[in-house]
């Protein structure tokens, strides 16, 4: 297992990149802890897979270095980096049996056959494929095939890190939960460094200790699920995490007061916002409380989604969503209050720290 350092990594697929937009990965500079479980979360095309392939060595970064336990591995091949990676779509060796598929990475590395057998049987057991060990892999269903791909990633116990590139896309929802919790327990048991790429926030939040949110080729925030929820450092994180996403309202900030149209809100601190910067107030639907007093609000629609209700409303001319508990009251003459601790202020989309 290894600590992974990404030292000013930038990557462009085309030759001679000039503008920042030419980079698939703009600049990544981070240290990932040994034994951590990280999820790379972001929309399609944000550079998640590129970053993953740079770590595994399938892609050489245009700029920057990558270090495993302080050793520079930028120029090393995938084999030399000793990485396991599981891809989005199942990759299996058709002509081999299930057993041989799992044994393949070990045999290629000249592991003694007795040890191979022990490891493969453990993995077969874990993936619930023992009864198919001797069968040709070709005849399996898509999720069984993907389990084999996962198994090949997990079969080597000495890897520096295990990378997952949206591995559960083709798996049945019910099986997803099972596999995800198995991965989680493996992580607890063996303290593998795991990096898990996904665009599904539930998957990311349940799998990882730290979630790395990416947007347009940059890492916008690395944090625990709670941090991402309470203090999204970029409005994108606010939108992307949570359902519905954070409400973002354009405001004018003067001292510790935010003005939206003719409504003034006391935000409890004086954020430093430069002149000419786009200023926004972010508040999660969970931190807006409907009441009979407070600021005026016009309710447009109420969606009942079971354990809670989502109120779609217009506040000071801007659309907002509010989450109300399933038995919560929705007053006819609705007003709204903001929970002060839930307010974040953004300047040019980036969060302004509270001071004092």
């Amino acid at each position, binding site marked *: 297992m290894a600590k992974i350092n990404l030292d000013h990594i930038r990557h462009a697929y085309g030759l001679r990149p000039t503008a920042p937009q030419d980079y698939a990965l703009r600049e990544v500079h981070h240290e990932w802890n040994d034994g951590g479980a990280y999820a790379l979360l972001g929309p399609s095309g944000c550079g998640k897979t590129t970053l993953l*392939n740079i770590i*595994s060595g*399938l892609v050489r970064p245009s700029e920057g270095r990558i270090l495993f336990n302080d050793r520079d591995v930028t120029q090393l*091949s*995938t*084999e030399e980096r000793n*990485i*396991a*990676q599981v*891809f*989005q*779509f199942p*990759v299996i*060796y*058709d*002509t*081999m049996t299930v057993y041989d598929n799992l044994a*393949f*990475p070990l045999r*290629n*590395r000249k592991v003694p056959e007795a040890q191979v057998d022990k490891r493969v049987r453990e993995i077969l057991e874990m993936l619930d494929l023992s009864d198919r060990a001797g*069968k*040709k892999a*070709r*005849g399996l269903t898509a999720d069984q095939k993907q389990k084999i*791909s996962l198994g*090949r*990633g997990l079969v080597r116990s000495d890897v520096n890190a295990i990378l997952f590139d949206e591995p559960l896309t083709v798996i049945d929802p019910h099986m997803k939960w099972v596999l995800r919790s198995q991965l989680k327990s493996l992580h607890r048991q063996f303290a593998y460094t795991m990096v898990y790429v996904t665009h599904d926030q539930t998957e990311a939040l349940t799998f990882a200790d730290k979630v790395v949110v990416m947007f347009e080729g940059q890492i916008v925030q690395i944090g625990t699920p709670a941090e991402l929820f309470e203090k999204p450092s970029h409005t994108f994180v606010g939108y992307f995490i949570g359902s519905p996403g954070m409400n973002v309202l354009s405001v004018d900030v003067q001292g510790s007061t935010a003005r939206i149209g003719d409504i003034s809100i006391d935000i409890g601190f004086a954020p430093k916002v430069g002149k000419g910067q786009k200023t926004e107030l972010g508040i999660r639907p969970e931190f807006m409380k409907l009441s009979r007093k407070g600021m005026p609000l016009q309710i447009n629609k109420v969606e009942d989604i079971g354990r809670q209700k989502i109120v779609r409303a217009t506040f000071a001319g801007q659309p907002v969503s509010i989450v109300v508990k399933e038995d919560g009251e929705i007053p006819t003459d609705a007003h709204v209050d903001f929970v002060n601790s839930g307010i974040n202020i953004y300047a040019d989309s980036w969060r302004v720290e509270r001071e004092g």
Partner: protein
Amino acid sequence: MNKTWNNKAWFLVLPAFIVVAFSAIIPLMTVVNYSVQDTFGNNEFFWAGTEWFKEILDSDRFWSSLGRNLMFSFIILVIEIPLGIFIALNMPRRGIGVPICLVTMAMPLLVPWNVVGTIWQLLCRSDIGLLGYALARIGIQFSYASDPLHAWITVVAMDVWHWTSLVVLLSYAGLVSIPDAYYQAARIDGASRLSVFRYIQLPKMKRVLLIAFLLRFMDSFMIYTEPFVATGGGPGTSTTFLSIDLVKMAIGQFDLGPAAAMSLIYFLIILLLSWIFYTVMTSSDAET
């Protein structure tokens, strides 16, 4: 739901049936007709039964032609299939090299059969042919007209030159359809170049290779024009294949009955061998 049962749909098949009848069934039946009769011209026919079949199957001439045919197909398959795969593996996957390679590869396929025969006939002549002359200068008297071995080398080289491209193009099509993830997974798994070929590329190419194999087998087994033009079946009968023999018999000697019987036997052999190859090569798919 009530279904109306009638046989009107057969009318829809009729046009196709007529085309097939005129292009295949009727000519084939004519051959069958000839094969069981004897004629001395004047459009007079006498019933001969299975006599011609017996005569063909008893003749050394038939069996030696068949032997040469099998030998020829075996040699060119052993050369063309591995060579085709090897070339396809080494062709570029992207960039300007792709169209250049593809066009170059497709070129021999566009040359008509008799032109191929003529090209090689000229090329191998020791007085004016580029290859024959060059060989003569380094002391090898290459003569397809007098030495059976040289005739065979010429005929085989000609076929390899003409048809390896087909195997290359089919193999290449199989190779480019393999998703990148397979190669990436193989690198992660630490697979050697040989393992990648053995466990990824070869299984994925299997279907197109089967087609390439069958096409090349059937074509080579029916080969006629190229050796006919280049060597004329000689020297002696050393490059006389079944098809050449058949034409000699049917048109040269005008032995319609034996020629028809031979055609049918020839046809059945090709059908049988193709079926055997196909069954053997796809049987591994069935097991799971």
